[in-house]
Structure formats: structure tokens, C-alpha cells
């Protein structure tokens, strides 16, 4: 019999409650955290979500499969490309379409570039949560280089609906490879600065070490995936466990740690940035020639059945569950978004800490609110 993991919130009428959010600098969006305080100490955290619920799952039921893609951009807007890819892979697998090799390589490179951009933004926001305001600008400065590459190829910087079932919207821009290589060279120089400025800083380490400990059992039971889960030793990297696109062709390691505190989650993301650059470097020179899209019918009708596809976004495991009745519209589309599960663990690992720690912990979980509310 395994141990039962529980966190029960007992509300009293005389609790000293403060509401962090919906408009608050450190909740990165419209998330409301109900904190019960005892002095500076937090007794429990109750997250209230739904402030940016747009009913995307309902909207998907009246959209064709091509039209669903652009809605998935709007979940986790920082890993838009991975979200697109989840739907595309699902549709391709259901139709049993073989995608050209070139598409697979490009998708993988874009995944990793997007992950880098996302982790950079997380780094700056995390520093700012802890009061180091300068990190914000350094992170954005480096992220801008990636966004410029994106803009050249996709035409947009953040919400690029670049994937389509069967391939890509366009071929990559001729400059893409050159500029990506330049960026990797540039960022390899800048990333050590991140360590000097924040990771090695004694104040930062005091603020994050030993705070918000999450054990492996808790991570699995709460379904905490992505870097947050891997920091607790939960080997949940979909790229490694169920390789998709070109991930089976690259040599990379799944970064695992077992300490499970806020600092580990931080360190793990920094390490993932290095690993992402390794993956890109392996692929960028070897993109095979070929078509940028497979031949697809203009109206996609999935065969009757239920399909589930998982990809690894920058925040964890993204799952798309499509039920089709053979029509051009799906019957039901369910998105398993990583942050939904990642936020729920906040009470378990956050209660008992100080207010400032709640900010640090929720920052280290890397929450993106539209991803939670869908």
C-alpha cells in the first residue's frame, strides 16, 4: 500500500486572509492566490483560477482541424510552437500521414528555440519576482534575438501559427540557419552572465535553497511535469520517453535532479537552456532537403476514434485528446496543459513558508495563466 498524499485546507473564520491577485505584479497574469497568514507565515494557499477562461475547448468543437491550431497558440503563449505541434502530430498520427524529414528537423529546432525563448523570459521574470529588476532586461535582451529570427521566418514574434497538419505553413527563411548559429554563439557567451548575476548570488541562493521542497512522490501524484517535475526526480521528459519529430535522432540527456527545492528548479532550467543549444547545434547543419509539407486534403476528416498525443512544452507535458466521429469537426478536444497540474501543487509545497517564498515558489513553477484557464 502506498502512502496517501494529502493536503487538506481547513478554513477558519478568523484567518487573516490576503488576496494576491487577480492584479498583482508577481502572479504573471490574472491568477488569484488566497493566502491565509500568521504573521509573515502562510498557513495555506488557495489558488482561484478562471479569470482568463476563454472556452477554447468549446470553440474547438466548431472548428476544423486547421483552425484549431491557431487557438492552441493562446494557451501557453511562450511555447506556442510546441502547442501547435501537439495538435498537428495528433492529426498526422490519426491520419497515418508520413511527414517529410525536413519538417521533423525544422520542428525540432523550432521547439528548442521556443524553449530557449520561454526559459529566458522565465529567468527574467523569476529574477524580478525576487526583486532583482535588472535580470528582466538582460533576459529580454537575449530573447529579442530569437524573436527576430522567428519574425523573419514566421512573420510574427510570439503567436506564430507556423505548424499545420502535415507540415509547416512555409519553408524556413534562407537566413534562418545562419542567424540561428549566430544566436547560439552569442548566447553561449551571455548565459554565464546569468549565473554570475543571479545563480551564484548569495542572496538569491538564500532565498531559494530549501524552499518549496517537492518530493518525487508528490510530483508524480500531483502530475507536476516539465522542469519542475524533473527537479524532483520525476523522469517525465516526453522528448526522451516517447520521442516525436526528430528527437530520436539527436543525442541529448534528460536533466534530472532529486533535490526538489526552488533552487533546483531554477538550476534545472538553466541546464536545459544549455541542453537546448546542444540539440539545435546538432540539427541546424543537417536539415535535409525536401518539401516543407506533406500532401494533405484541404478538408481533413479524422477517422472515427479517440487519439491522444503528448509533447513536451517548455513547462511540462502537453497532451491533446481528440475524439472524432469522422466529421470535419472534432466531437471533443481536451487539452492537458502542464500548468494546470503544476499550479495545483502550490498549496502542498507552499504552505508553511513566508509570503516572499510563495512568490519565489510560484515563480519557480513557471506559471503561465492562460495555459491554466484555457
Amino acid at each position, binding site marked *: 500500500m502506498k502512502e496517501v498524499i494529502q493536503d487538506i485546507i481547513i478554513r477558519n473564520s478568523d484567518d487573516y486572509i490576503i488576496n494576491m491577485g487577480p492584479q498583482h505584479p508577481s502572479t504573471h497574469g490574472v491568477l488569484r492566490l488566497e493566502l491565509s497568514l500568521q504573521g509573515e507565515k502562510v498557513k495555506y494557499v488557495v489558488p482561484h*483560477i*478562471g479569470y482568463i477562461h476563454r472556452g477554447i*475547448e468549446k470553440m474547438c468543437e*466548431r472548428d476544423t482541424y486547421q483552425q484549431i491550431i491557431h487557438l492552441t497558440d493562446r494557451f501557453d503563449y511562450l511555447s506556442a510552437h510546441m502547442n501547435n505541434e501537439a495538435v498537428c502530430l495528433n492529426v498526422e498520427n490519426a491520419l497515418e500521414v508520413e511527414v517529410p524529414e525536413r519538417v521533423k528537423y525544422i520542428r525540432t529546432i523550432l521547439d528548442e528555440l521556443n524553449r530557449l525563448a520561454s526559459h529566458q523570459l522565465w529567468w527574467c521574470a523569476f529574477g524580478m519576482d525576487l526583486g532583482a529588476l535588472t535580470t528582466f532586461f538582460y533576459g529580454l535582451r537575449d530573447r529579442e534575438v530569437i524573436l527576430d529570427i522567428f519574425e523573419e521566418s514566421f512573420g510574427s514574434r510570439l503567436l506564430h501559427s507556423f505548424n499545420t497538419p502535415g507540415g509547416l505553413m512555409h519553408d524556413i527563411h534562407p537566413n534562418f540557419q545562419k542567424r540561428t548559429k549566430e544566436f547560439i554563439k552569442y548566447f553561449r557567451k551571455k548565459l554565464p552572465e546569468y549565473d554570475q548575476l543571479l545563480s551564484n548570488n548569495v542572496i538569491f541562493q538564500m532565498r531559494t535553497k530549501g524552499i518549496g521542497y517537492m518530493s518525487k512522490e508528490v510530483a508524480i501524484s500531483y*502530475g507536476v511535469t516539465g522542469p519542475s517535475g524533473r527537479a524532483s526526480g520525476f*523522469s517525465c521528459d516526453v522528448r526522451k520517453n516517447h520521442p516525436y519529430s526528430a528527437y530520436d535522432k539527436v543525442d541529448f540527456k534528460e536533466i534530472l535532479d532529486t533535490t526538489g527545492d526552488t533552487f533546483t528548479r531554477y538550476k534545472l532550467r538553466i541546464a536545459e537552456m544549455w541542453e537546448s543549444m546542444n540539440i539545435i547545434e546538432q540539427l541546424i547543419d543537417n536539415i535535409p532537403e525536401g518539401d516543407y509539407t506533406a500532401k494533405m486534403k484541404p478538408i481533413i476528416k479524422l477517422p472515427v*476514434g479517440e487519439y491522444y498525443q503528448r509533447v513536451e512544452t517548455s513547462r511540462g507535458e502537453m497532451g491533446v*485528446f481528440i475524439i472524432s466521429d469522422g466529421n470535419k469537426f472534432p466531437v471533443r478536444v481536451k487539452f492537458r496543459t502542464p500548468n*494546470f497540474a503544476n499550479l495545483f501543487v502550490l498549496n502542498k509545497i507552499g504552505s508553511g513558508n513566508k509570503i516572499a517564498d510563495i512568490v519565489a515558489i510560484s515563480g519557480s513553477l513557471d506559471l503561465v495563466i492562460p495555459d491554466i484557464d484555457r
Partner: protein
Amino acid sequence: MTNDQLKEKISEWVSGIEFPENKQYLEVLVPANSLKKLAELLHNTPETDFDYLISLSGVDYVSHLAVVYHLESTSHKHFLVMKVKTEDRENPNFDTVNEIWRTAEWYEREVFDMFGIKFNNHPDLRRLLMDDDWVGFPLRKDYKDEIKMIER
């Protein structure tokens, strides 16, 4: 464990199990009254060890309401789709699995919010995404909202 072994094991444990056809994964259709029992056995037996609930989704098949559990074992890496359904649209209810997989608490709240499926013994069954005073269950197929929904 291979899918066939899993099938054998599961049909040993619980009676009235069906295995619908699924191209990708092994799918199990559980009778509602033995859902909790099967979930506990799947989670606690070392050979199956389904400790990771990936996602829990409500589905409206028009003829019936269903809840779909996507399970994975982090140690054995096998995958299972567990499904439970009811034809009662007025007062559908299932047992909760939130003590087994903690992440189910919010997923179940979301399913209650969107489909009106109640979960027995759930600690905090409130609406999650919609307002508390929202009328109706938006993801059901018979939900109508002339103002906010654009039909195609």
C-alpha cells in the same frame, strides 16, 4: 507489462469490464460502481503501478456522459486509457479518485464545472473555471447560449 497481460490482469480484478477498440492505447471501460476499486488496484499493485494520472477529461457522447482517465506508469512505462460512462444526464455521479492521484482533484472540479458530473466524496466540489453562479454546463452538447456562442 504488455497490453495483453494488462487485459488479463484487469479482467481478473473486476467483472463487467469491456475493452473497446483503440488504435493507440489499451482502453478499458469500467462499470461506474467498480471504478474506485479498479483505480486503487491499478495504482497500488506493484506490477501495474499506474502512479501518474496524465489527464482526466469529461466527454459528452450525446447518448451518454463519460469520464476518460489517461494513466501511465512511471516505472513500467505502460499506458492505459480508463473510461467510465453513465447514461444519466440529470444527476450523473462517479466516485472520486483524488486520494489516489492528487492531481485529480482539480480535474474533477473542471469536469463538474463543464459537464455537471458529480464526484462522490470529493473534498471541494465547486466550479473551477466558470463563475460560481453560472447556469448550465458549457461543454455539454445540449448547452445553448445565444449571446456568447456563435454557431457555424
